[in-house]
């Protein structure tokens, strides 16, 4: 490590393989200061502006938000919150086009800017050295800082590391042509950047801090050297200009001579790399409590009349920026026509080598957008030419010479075209950093890097599918196992139940003949009832109108009750007639009393006889009727359900034979249905038996009651008797209130 520092002190550096020297084009914007923009009318904030996951929404449509207020919160370590860049009202939360090469829509927050730019309450921290490590990390995480160099990796994860850090490398290379946002930031905010680096130093405690900067930014170098003059640990390393010096692994190689293994992260080699703009954001967040709500964006290209760097609020739409920078419409076609026109002037987000052209100028600036490039036709003719000029590869090998990752671009290209993913993996496609140097030098104008991008996306997709199929397989196996277990469990249960039944039967028969005969009688009854059920169910099925059948049965019952009531009334009247007569003529004729008494006696005898017979006749009928009336409803419903299930099953069976659906499923369902049916039938039979027994006992109990009631009636006169009769009738009709009311009305 000492030797590394010695070399650096001597101004000697290592070299990475390949690299190119494209025209820099930085002079377009590097001589103008960063300009503050007026507030746009509307801001569009995508919920996800970084690698990882989006946070959970904290606001609703219509909410007033203050500048710097958090709009989402992170529930996941890989999630980073977004904040309101200025005060205003949330006007919508909907899908909108985002800054992504696909031009797809993602969930965005729309803020109507109120123009007041009111800050939330801030707590400015004068001395960050007093903050604990965890406090600083929480501040960074809450400020929503993600790597501002391009990838947008959540910074709080990158700085929250345990192992010993040898080097903290600050990436100030800014190697891509046209872009000058970091350059200008370093010139104007070098103190704040150094503060940010100090905070990182406190967190990571590295042995050395190296600031890698290309030699084409003399003013920025001077500013940084000035700011770091008194800090022993920090070294500003001025590197020769070469693209892509700013690549993470390339910068590490240049500064330390170390190569990070394929598929490994720099942290494993004890190195952390942070972008210089990220350092600025960290100092702003920790010291001034300003979350990441704005960034420097370079607006450049010859199609702009006023190219310059701007402080842009996140969420500002590109068309607003282009307007501010004086976008010249070369073809002089009105905007509206242009939209439909094939060759609308291209606008590129990011640099000319690694950026992507945006399909829609409504896209917002996000945390990782550092440049908007609007080239003129003279400047970049290829951007206006939609047809590809690709010709066959001539195997010149220039691409392999310039590849900073030491890959074999032409081999990769062939494998990518053939979609040979295995071969691509062997050729280490995933070490490709998408720098585009190969495509830049290709004399055949093959867009090599685009082929790799496609292949990478395909491989990622395939990996996702493989993962999914693996999961599906596991779930399928688990389900099969579960079904098997359930089947076995069911079988066991059935066997157990059968054994228990057998044991019970044996025991009962051993108890004696009476018990067994009772069981036999019960079984017979159950069978008879089941048969009746079945019949009824069939009837219900044919009618397919359970309500109707219930009603008819109810009606017949009502009729029977009415008939009974009438018969009884007749008898009562017969009884009462003589007594009424006697009552009426009580004081008139005396000896009539004797006759009346005789008549009463006769009537009583008759009634007693009648009662006997009627009780004999009626008791079972009442019992049966009441059971049927009570159980009727339920029974009918169960019967209907059974009938429906049967019909469905029959249909299913039919369809299954036609379609030949895997029989396993059908079998399982049918066995399940059978099981259920049997259980229901058993339950119904049991309930019926119980009810019948209860009724029998209750009628037996009631008989003496009736007798007791009739005894005093003997002594009393007819009024009491009539009352008793009414009471009896009521008691009988108790089961159905409707029935009783009909009887009453008839009476």
């Amino acid at each position, binding site marked *: 490590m000492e030797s590394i520092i010695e070399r650096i002190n001597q101004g000697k550096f290592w070299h990475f393989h390949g690299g190119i020297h*494209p*025209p820099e*084009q930085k002079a377009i914007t590097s001589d103008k200061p960063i300009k503050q923009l007026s507030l746009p009318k509307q801001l569009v904030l995508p919920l996800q502006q970084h690698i990882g996951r989006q946070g959970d929404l904290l606001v609703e449509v219509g909410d007033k938000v203050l500048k710097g207020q958090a709009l989402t919160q992170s529930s996941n370590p890989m999630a980073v919150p977004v904040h309101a860049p200025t005060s205003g009202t949330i006007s919508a939360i909907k899908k909108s086009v*985002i800054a*992504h*090469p*696909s031009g*797809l829509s*993602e969930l965005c927050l729309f803020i109507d800017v109120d123009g007041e730019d009111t800050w939330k309450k801030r707590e400015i921290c004068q001395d960050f050295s007093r903050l604990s490590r965890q406090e600083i990390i929480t501040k960074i995480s809450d400020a929503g800082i993600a790597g501002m160099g391009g990838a947008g990796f959540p910074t709080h994860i990158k700085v929250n590391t345990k192992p010993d850090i040898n080097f903290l490398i600050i990436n100030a290379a800014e190697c891509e*042509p*046209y872009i000058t946002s970091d350059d200008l930031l370093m010139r104007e905010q070098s103190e704040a950047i150094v503060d940010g680096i100090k905070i990182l130093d406190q967190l990571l405690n590295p042995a050395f801090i190296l600031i890698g900067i290309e030699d084409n930014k003399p003013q920025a170098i001077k500013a940084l050297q000035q700011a770091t003059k008194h800090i022993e640990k920090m070294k500003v390393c001025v590197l020769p200009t070469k693209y892509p010096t700013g690549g993470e692994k390339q910068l590490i190689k240049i500064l330390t001579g170390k190569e990070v293994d394929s598929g490994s992260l720099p942290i494993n080699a004890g190195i952390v790399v942070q972008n210089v703009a990220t350092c600025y954001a960290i100092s702003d967040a920790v010291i001034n409590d300003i979350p990441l709500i704005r960034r420097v964006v370079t607006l450049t290209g010859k199609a702009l009349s006023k190219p310059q760097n701007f402080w842009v609020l996140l969420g500002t739409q590109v068309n607003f920026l282009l307007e501010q920078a004086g976008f010249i419409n070369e073809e002089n076609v009105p905007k509206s026509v242009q939209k439909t026109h094939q060759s609308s002037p*291209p606008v*590129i987000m990011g640099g*000319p*080598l*690694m*950026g*992507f*052209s945006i399909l829609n100028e409504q896209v917002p600036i996000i945390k990782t957008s550092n440049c908007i490039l609007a*080239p003129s036709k003279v*400047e*970049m*003719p*290829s*951007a206006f030419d*939609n047809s590809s000029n690709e010709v066959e590869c001539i195997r010149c090998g220039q691409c392999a010479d310039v590849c900073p990752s030491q890959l074999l671009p032409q081999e990769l290209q062939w494998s990518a075209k053939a979609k040979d993913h295995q071969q691509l993996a062997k050729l280490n496609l995933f070490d490709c950093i998408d720098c*585009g140097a190969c*495509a*830049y030098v290709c004399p055949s104008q093959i*867009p090599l*890097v*685009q*082929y790799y*991008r*496609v292949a990478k*996306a*395909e491989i990622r*997709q395939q990996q*996702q*599918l493989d993962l*999914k*199929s*693996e*999961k*599906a*397989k596991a*779930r*399928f196996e*688990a*389900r*099969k196992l579960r079904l098997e277990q359930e089947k076995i469990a069911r079988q066991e249960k059935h066997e157990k139940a059968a054994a228990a039944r057998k044991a019970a039967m044996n025991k009962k028969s051993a108890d004696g003949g009476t018990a067994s005969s009772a069981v036999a009688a019960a079984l017979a009854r159950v069978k008879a009832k089941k048969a009746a059920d079945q019949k009824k169910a069939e009837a219900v099925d044919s009618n397919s109108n359970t309500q109707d059948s219930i009603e008819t049965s109810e009606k017949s019952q009502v009729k029977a009750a009415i008939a009974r009531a009438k018969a009884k009334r007749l008898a009562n009247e017969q009884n009462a007639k003589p007594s009424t007569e006697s009552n009426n003529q009580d004081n008139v004729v005396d000896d009539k009393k004797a006759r009346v008494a005789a008549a009463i006696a006769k009537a009583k005898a008759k009634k007693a006889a009648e009662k006997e017979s009627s009780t004999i006749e009626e008791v079972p009928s009442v019992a049966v009727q009441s059971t049927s009336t009570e159980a009727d409803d339920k029974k009918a419903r169960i019967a209907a359900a059974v009938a429906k299930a049967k019909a469905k099953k029959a249909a299913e069976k039919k369809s299954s034979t036609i379609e030949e*659906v*895997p029989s*396993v*499923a059908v079998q*399982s*369902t049918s066995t399940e249905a059978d099981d259920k049916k049997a259980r229901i039938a058993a339950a119904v039979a049991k309930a019926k038996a119980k009810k019948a027994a209860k009724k029998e006992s209750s009628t037996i109990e009631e008989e003496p009651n009736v007798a007791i009631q009739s005894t005093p009636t003997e002594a009393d006169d007819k009024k009491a008797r009539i009352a008793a009769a009414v009471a009896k009738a009521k008691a009988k009709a108790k089961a159905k209130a409707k029935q009783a009311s009909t009887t009453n009305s008839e009476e």
Partner: protein
Amino acid sequence: MNILIAILVLGVISALFGALLGYASVRFHVEGDPIAEQLDALLPQTQCGQCGYPGCKPYAEAVANGEAINKCAPGGEDTIKKIADLLGVDVQPLDDNHEQDDSSQSNLPKVAFIIEEDCIGCTKCIQACPVDAILGAAKQMHTILADECTGCDLCVAPCPVDCIEMRPTPETIQNWQWDLNKIAVKQIG
């Protein structure tokens, strides 16, 4: 005499090797069918049953035993090609019975969706789902676990109220594919 010795020596040698092979076959016996396992790994694991077998593994076993290799509709040409490579047989076009219509819609990955207002909670789809990707109980509304759904279609037919439909999975940034014709990153001259 010489010929007898030759016969004897060769006989002894063959007996020796026979014994060795016999021992090896017992000692290094492999449980299961390794070919079927490899085939199973190639299949898409949608468990859709379109091949006529109840799941991917049974079909893999059947292919190992000589079943036609062109019955996997979800896998399509790619899977057939891989199976053909593995088994060393000719690539066959997809079975006519399983031919998908070539419209771009049919080739998109799909996921089942339950129209929840119409669901009566009959659990029939739950019983049909090969990967337990439907959540619900009797007389309760069901729903699909979209992440687990393989898009196999098996739940669509049993639904008595036709409340399940197959919808193409929406294109997101995560599953978006670069389209070479659409990319226009410009190289500076």
